[in-house]
């Protein structure tokens, strides 16, 4: 389930509870971050010694402190809905009671291995130690009874299919990166820019809901464990998100989102460049409103690089997450396919969080150490079509006993195997023009009236109001009918990919020769993490689609404020949608 963008609704619901504040007058981040590591280490050692005398005793404890400095500016229709930021330090205490073979994190008890709280904002050793003590003691009081329960359950239940231990053995890590790079940030200037950009939607009466969001997060992870690991590693996330929403006259919701990602705010595209993309996005939406609804179709399809990247992230990437190979309730699509062909042999897939940028574009899934303190590694997942590896955390499963540095989470949640930068590469490529030519040939060969070109696929679940069934994991938004007879391409709306999306992977016949990047944020059991997906355009000989089930909501009854008495008002009354002003 990738939720590859933030909708204003999500932001709105959380707005009061966390992120947005008007001043960031908190103490400046400590100039010596490793001072914190020292305090954490001292307190961890004390906890280890003291709790060793208990029964059942923990065999592993780690402290992770996320020092986060965040800014969010949300604009809509030329005014700010929210602007602010703040600093917080979240401490996660992870505790494992029992043995690596069987501990309190077993199966559905996994959440008992973690407890979280807020740490003081500066490095007052007594105060920091005291809060860590409170959290550790509280966590022990959860973890120890949980372990006893696990032991009892394991004794009475039938034997599990995968008898892998609950925790892998890894080498201790010692690594301290430089603290988060400072960069200049002028709040008022950015507020003005967000206002100006969001005001562009005022020109489009049909796009009744829109937002421009700037998100900046500077984070520093300090990690210590009783295995003598000490890791300190920073990360930054700078995103500018643009989104617009409308509804077709038949009630179908239409949403377009554009995300720009950079390492610093200054590296974001220029205002004029973003403004141009907003115009394009708005024009897309206006065109989509009027576009015919998709018809059921089974035939050739061409995916743009971005669309293919999202498709792979959703359809393949999530199924290669390690913990899905042992969960009793998981589909385990790939668990037993190691060393078998799962893709055409000209395709290879890696997940490489160590890549900071590709062709000059920053990759959102970059990190040096994962949230279990393990070094990021390039994982060769599929090699020339053959499945070789999974995205692994420190939760072993049959045949895979080690972490490859993909244990990721948001603060407060137990890490699981997650994607970082998922990169699809191909040895059978064609240039853009050639690819289109092959696409049209394929349409003709199959005697189809048209093929479908997927220009953009939004991430899967959008967390709006609809709970989509599990099989609908991708949401194509810009889809064109491509006619073999030379007619211009025709935009259609409401396309849903059906059947088993996985089966479609076997039908990839050739790819483009340029890799495109999708930067986003991915949500799953272990929370939201930044990710990238990279892929070339792809030609599918066969893909099955249907018309999306639609809501009964109608477009707004009255014209937007400011458009009374304009042609928009007149046009609106002529839509014949059954809604009469």
């Amino acid at each position, binding site marked *: 389930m990738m939720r590859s963008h933030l909708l204003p609704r999500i932001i*709105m619901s959380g*707005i*009061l509870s966390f992120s*947005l*504040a*008007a*001043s960031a*007058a*908190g*103490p400046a981040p400590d100039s010596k971050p490793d001072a914190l590591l020292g305090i954490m280490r001292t*307190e961890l050692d*004390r*906890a280890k010694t*003291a*709790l060793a005398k*208990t029964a059942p005793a923990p065999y592993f404890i780690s402290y992770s402190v996320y020092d986060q400095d965040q800014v969010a500016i949300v604009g*809509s*229709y*030329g*005014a700010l*809905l*929210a602007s*602010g930021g*703040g600093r*917080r330090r979240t401490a996660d205490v992870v505790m494992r009671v029992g043995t690596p073979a069987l501990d309190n994190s077993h199966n559905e008890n996994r959440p008992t291995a973690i407890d979280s709280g*807020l*740490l*003081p*904002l*500066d*490095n*007052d*050793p*007594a*105060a*920091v130690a*005291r*809060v860590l*003590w*409170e959290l550790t*003691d509280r966590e022990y*009081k959860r973890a120890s009874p949980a372990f006893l329960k696990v032991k009892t359950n394991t004794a009475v239940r039938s034997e599990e299919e995968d008898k892998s231990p609950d925790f892998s053995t890894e080498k201790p890590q010692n690594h301290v990166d430089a603290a988060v790079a400072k960069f200049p940030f002028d709040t008022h200037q950015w507020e*003005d820019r967000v*206002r*100006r950009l969001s*005001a562009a939607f*005022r*020109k489009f009466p049909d796009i*009744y809901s829109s937002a421009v969001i700037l998100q900046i997060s500077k984070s520093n992870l300090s990690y210590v464990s009783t295995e003598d690991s000490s890791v300190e590693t920073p990360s930054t996330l700078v995103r500018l998100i643009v989104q617009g929403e409308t509804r077709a006259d038949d009630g179908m919701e239409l949403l377009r989102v554009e995300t720009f990602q950079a390492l610093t705010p200054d590296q974001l595209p220029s205002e004029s460049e973003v403004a141009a993309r907003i115009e394009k996005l708005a024009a897309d939406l206006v065109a989509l409103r009027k576009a015919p609804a998709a018809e059921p179709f089974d035939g050739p399809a061409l995916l743009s690089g971005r669309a293919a990247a999202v498709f792979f992230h959703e359809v393949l990437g999530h199924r290669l997450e390690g913990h899905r190979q042992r969960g009793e309730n998981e589909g385990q699509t790939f668990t037993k396919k190691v060393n078998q062909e799962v893709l055409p042999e000209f395709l290879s897939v890696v997940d490489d969080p160590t890549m900071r940028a590709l062709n000059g574009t920053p990759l959102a899934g970059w990190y040096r150490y994962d949230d279990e303190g393990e070094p990021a590694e390039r994982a060769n997942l599929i090699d020339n079509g053959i499945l070789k590896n999974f995205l692994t955390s420190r939760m072993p499963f049959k045949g895979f006993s080690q972490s490859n540095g993909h244990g990721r989470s948001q603060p407060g949640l137990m890490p699981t195997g997650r994607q970082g930068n998922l990169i699809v590469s191909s040895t059978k490529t064609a240039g853009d023009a050639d690819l289109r030519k092959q696409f049209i040939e394929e349409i003709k060969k199959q005697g189809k009236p048209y093929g479908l070109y997927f220009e953009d696929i939004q991430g899967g679940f959008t967390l709006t109001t609809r709970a989509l069934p599990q099989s609908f994991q991708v949401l194509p938004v810009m889809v064109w009918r491509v006619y073999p007879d030379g007619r211009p391409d025709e935009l259609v709306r409401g396309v849903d990919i059906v059947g088993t999306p996985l089966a479609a992977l076997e039908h990839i016949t050739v790819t483009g020769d340029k890799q495109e990047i999708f930067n986003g944020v991915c949500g799953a059991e272990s929370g939201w993490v930044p990710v990238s997906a990279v892929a070339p355009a792809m030609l599918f000989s066969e893909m099955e689609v249907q018309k999306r089930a639609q809501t009964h909501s*109608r477009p*707004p*009854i*009255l014209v937007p*404020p*400011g458009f*009374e008495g304009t042609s928009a008002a007149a046009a609106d009354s002529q839509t014949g949608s*059954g*809604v*009469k*002003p």
Partner: protein
Amino acid sequence: MTRRRCINLLVMTAALLAGSPAVARAQDNTAPAPATSPAPPASPAPMFSAEARAAGASDSVLQAMVAEIERSKAKLKMEGVQTPYFIEYRISDIDSAVANATFGALQFEQHTRARILRVVVRIGDYTQDSYFRQGEGVADLAPNENDVLALRQQLWLATDRAYKATGEAYAAKQSLSKEITVDHSVNDFAPATALVSIEPLVKLEADATKWHKPLENASALYRKHPDVQSISTSLRFTALNIYYANTEGTLTRNGKATYSLNIVASTQAADGMRLVRSPFYMVGSSKELPAADKFVADAETALETLDQLRAAPIVDEEYRGPVLFDADAADDVFADLIGANILGAKPAPGATARTTGEFASSYKSRVLPDFVTVVDDPTQKSFQGNSLIGSYDFDDEGVRATAVTVVDKGTLANYLIGRQPIRDFPASNGHGRAAAGGPATPYIGNLFLRSTNAMSQAGLKKKLIDMCKDSGKPYGYFVETLGDQLSPRLLYRVWVSDGHEELVRGAVFNELDSRELRNDLIATGDTPLVRNREGNISGTVIAPAFLFDDLEVKRSDAAKPKLPDYPAPPLQSAK
């Protein structure tokens, strides 16, 4: 502002629309064709008076509300759904600073500015309408800025959503009313007269950041009290301005600032019993905040009482007899047992009760001793020099506040009610209150308990001892302050022999309920205490000490948590 002007002519359009001429024009469009007479057209009376328009003209939020509510009332129409008979808008503008410290160090601080809108659209009529389930309104964020067009945009979308929900809500309500028999027919909504009142905007008058150090200093006192397990100090300063408009022509703006400081400290006795102290300040004016030294001293006192509580004996023996509640504890009892039960909240459709509270069937019955009268008076701004945060001139439904005698010489005379009628109470008495973005429900403003059987504190203590003496008890109980669910936090035995007070722990009151208050309250103190209550809706209770002649005190059977599995870290020198 200059930057935004470059957008395009839309901003100018917005400015035009927001002004009254454009609004008036919009309304003219919907008026019946004028007769041939040169006299003003026989259009419906304008929604807002000239006074309202003039008053709202200087405020972008009010302008946006007026423009959009008038347009919606005039034009909202969907096939198969009636036109609205009533629309209301409320925008709550919140400016809030929060911070907290623990163990001597700042842990969190934030300054939040948000505007939250709520739109209610009703179809049907006052006797039966669509205010039911999804028809109870829509809440959303509104722009923080005074941009009329952007404000209208959010109001427009929320109004559209709210209106579209009315059809199904109305149908559901009607079908439900066909299924159930209604004993007493009560209207769904009470009309109210138009009210126009634009009060000055309220701002935060205290700098929250100046309190960060006192918060740290107070929470650092754990160093002197090694047995205290946790301590957290916090502040919340809030300026809330509420904008309100409805299609009856009401247009109001009012504001309120509140300032709270909190101390929460806890420990465990050697036997594991959880002991908590949580003194706080909640005031309606920055001038009434304590001095920083006083705040730190209060934290010290709280920690000292925790130390004393750890050492205090447990209440083992059951006791039944006189108990004296200090005003601080009495305020809580009053708020919980009276304040919560005098609200005229309409019960679920089909229910025969008058309200949802314990006093649903107590109208005109005795609910308190006859020496007690209870009045809720939101119009009173202060009492004995303390600002009352439950005060307001008009409520969150735009209805003028009135003083209501709730209990007259012990007899329940009135409920506090908003615009949702209950049996025998067809109209609002100005107590429709709402949290930001929430529905209006009846709530207290300033709830006063007045007593004609009042005694001094010394007199009450003497009476307590005398009563114990008469019944042969070695001691009586005095409760200074309460915790959750009216359980005592600071409870003392007052020994008959020499009058000395002995702190005890681990007790609860058995059956401290409204019946107890009615039958066993025998006297009150003569010094009412103002207690501003923290919550989503501001309210104040003002009550003196209570003396009960017959109340049961027994040992709590709450589970005792385990002690820490290892000791706290040793104290190190402060940063």
